[in-house]
């Protein structure tokens, strides 16, 4: 007969309580975090070079126009690559499916934000995250399309190119504001950041912020 802990003497360690849940829960796999990191790096490079091409003071400071244009174009063209590679991951596809659709509690979340109420129900992703994901994906595609029209000048008639420049410029401004909002949310939500960095979040935090998520 094997001895159980505690039976050999008073100095033995007490038996741990059997059914206690771990305090950390899994939120993102390594593949998902890699997709996020690669997308974030490309986006930051793309936005930084855009600023150096566009803001006169920065353009005068940096110069090197050909290099800056090259970095801007290639980071922009490669921006969808991490997403497409990520589709190989089942966890990433599952999260996309969650991000893509509004459920009844997402509508409740939007109403709560509008009425400045504190109870804001959410699944694994809240409605704000879903809106951000959809909008930024659409905006990035428009930037890619208009950017290609501006790059390959022989593709389309002049009127298209002028229009593409117009849309590219104004949408860049809007995206700058929205991406700044995304960074602000990350900055003010440390546990979300931990989740994206380590893949795990605090169970109590998850229950609080994402009550409908059953990890």
């Amino acid at each position, binding site marked *: 007969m094997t001895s159980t802990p505690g039976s050999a003497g008073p100095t033995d360690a007490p038996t741990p309580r059997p059914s206690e849940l771990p305090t950390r829960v899994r939120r993102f796999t390594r593949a998902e975090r890699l997709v996020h990191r690669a997308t974030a790096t490309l986006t930051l490079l793309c936005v930084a070079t855009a600023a150096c091409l566009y803001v006169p003071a920065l353009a005068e400071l940096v110069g090197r126009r050909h290099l800056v244009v090259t970095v801007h174009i290639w980071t922009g063209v490669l921006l969808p690559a991490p997403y497409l590679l990520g589709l190989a991951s089942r966890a990433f596809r599952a999260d996309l*499916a969650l991000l893509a659709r509004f459920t009844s509690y997402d509508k409740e979340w939007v109403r709560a934000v509008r009425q400045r109420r504190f109870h804001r129900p959410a699944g694994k992703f809240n409605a704000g995250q879903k809106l951000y994901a959809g909008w930024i994906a659409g905006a990035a595609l428009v930037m890619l399309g208009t950017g290609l029209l501006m790059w390959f000048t022989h593709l389309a008639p002049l009127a298209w190119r002028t229009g593409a420049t117009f849309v590219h410029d104004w949408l860049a401004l809007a995206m700058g504001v929205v991406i700044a909002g995304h960074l602000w949310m990350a900055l003010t939500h440390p546990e979300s950041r931990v989740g994206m960095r380590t893949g795990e979040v605090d169970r109590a935090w998850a229950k609080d912020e994402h009550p409908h998520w059953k990890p």
Partner: protein
Amino acid sequence: MTPQPPDGTAPPPRPEPKQPPDAQRPADAERPAAPDPGTPVARRLVLGMLGLGAAGVAAAPYVQKGIDSFLGAAADKDPTGLTGLFPNSSGFRYYSVADSVRKKTPATYRLDIGGLVERPVSYTLAQLRALPQTRVVRDVQCVTGWRVPDTPFEGVRLSHLLDLAGVKPTGRAVRFLCFDGTYSESLTLDQARRDDVLVALKMQDKDLPHNHGGPVRLYVAPMYFYKSAKWLSGINVTDRVLPGYWEELGYDVDAWVGRSNGRTDTPTV
């Protein structure tokens, strides 16, 4: 952003493809616990943005003028200069291909004229100012699309400088060098001898500032603005046209506004 169906083992909220989009709406409140396919918000956002983008490209020619004139009027009353950060197709934009460009003062500036000429010469800024000055007022058209109407440039006709130096019979073209250390440009001798091609000392009736290529830049009125090399420091007469900086990167050497680079802008001359 269209989600791929996760193979086999599915997470709880899955779209049910055959259900019409509006069918589940009234049921929402009655059975919140049942699997809720939900509204495809991401798809709508993506398609909506694509639609807006296409509409923006199509509407730009009509909208842009209004926005430009509005921003122009706002900029007149804007002490902060913040209006300058909005996209605007009028007004100059700063392009430099070099890392940083050291400023030249009247004391340090020189313009060297050499190559296939009888009398190579090096001008100071004061000497250039003492030569006969010509003023040309034309639109400035950049190959990237922006245009600044009725911009006065003033300086010495290039043809006058070439005559003073005496072009040798073997000379066929002119190559321009810049003190940013990187940029270069070229014109044929016939193009260089036009009377709207200047070695410009003034723009908008003021001394050329550094960020516009001062103290001395080239000004080629009938061509796209990349021909008007900033920070001009050297003029060499050569026996053939040597492509300049942007021309090595695919832009046209003969850059007539409206007849080159695949563009159909209104000619500036």
